[in-house]
């Protein structure tokens, strides 16, 4: 049951993230501000 709900939820969430990423990327005044980041995410928080 949990998987039945989490699978579509994760799918929607990942696609929402893709839209938000474009919005964030295009919405920048300059690229510089984009690289400000949380250390916790930057160091060891990524799977690629």
């Amino acid at each position: 049951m949990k998987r039945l709900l989490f699978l579509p939820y994760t799918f929607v969430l990942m696609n929402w993230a893709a839209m938000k990423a474009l919005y964030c990327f295009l919405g920048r005044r300059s690229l510089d501000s984009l690289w400000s980041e949380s250390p916790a995410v930057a160091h060891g928080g990524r799977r690629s």
Partner: protein
Amino acid sequence: MAKAIFWLSFALVAYVYVGYPALLWAWSRLRPRPVRRAAGVWEPTVSLILAVHNERETLARKIENCLALDYPADKLQVVVSLDGSTDGTAAVAEAGRLQYPGLTVVEGGHRGKAAAINRGVAAATGDVLVFCDARQRVDPDALRALLEDLSDPAVGAVTGELLLLDAADREAADGVGLYWRYEKALRAMESTVHSTLGVTGALYALRRELFVPLPERTILDDMMVPLRAVLAGRRTVFEPRARAYDAVCPPDQEFRRKLRTLVGNFQLLHVMPELLDPKRNPVFLQYVSHKLGRLLVPYALIALFASNLLLRDGFYLAFLGCQSLWYLLAAGGAVLSRRPAAPIEVLQEGECPR
């Protein structure tokens, strides 16, 4: 018109999530490119680089984990590159340096992970660079597994496998865990036909000569490094025997990670436009299908649903029902996961509201 939009959107979504994996599956069986490992044992000098920021709680354990790897001590250098930590991580690293002669500690200001990696590599003496994150535990035989693949001169980089474990210490099979397993299956097939498009930051190896210092604000070092190796004419392969372990995160935390990764994909396109040149990029088809396709899918999903609202007879009505059910289940998942309204870490406050 609505039908054309419906089918074009459907085709894009179906290609990205079903067609491309099916194509890869067939390709990997018809034209596999096996890794040609060296006959004997290949034991180059290795520098294992940990770029760390505020990892006081995990660093000591990670250093022990690295030094416990099955590899001759005189050929293994562990470099801890500190990125301006403020929580006492430097003291932990210094204690480690005093305890283990094979440990090198380099320090700089807080300039981000890419800068820390650059500093770590500058202090590295090995012919092979191995990159790890501080949090994940690595199997003792993982390094040898990476090096076996790297002994093939055609291979420039090797990524290990990151296993996401649930509370019971089993590989997670729900939500994010399932999604990650799907991604790893794609990665394995991409590796079989040529190269993976990225590596896991938890564990990967690179030939020293292929490292080019990263631009300081690079978000996806674990895509830029292997893609540079591929553009330089080498392969980046996936080695599932080289394992690292991490705990699975709830979907809301994964969302922040994913958002960061996706913004990083846009950055990568900006700084490496050659990725879109099929003459220069040997994995052009994989890059467009896997990475760019994912960036386009959400708009196709919106178009698919909107056009389906205008087409409400027979097959289309049934399809609309399926779509509606899918999003209702997703809403149920959202309720179940009880997403907290945490700020997006990747972005500056106020610039990208949720």
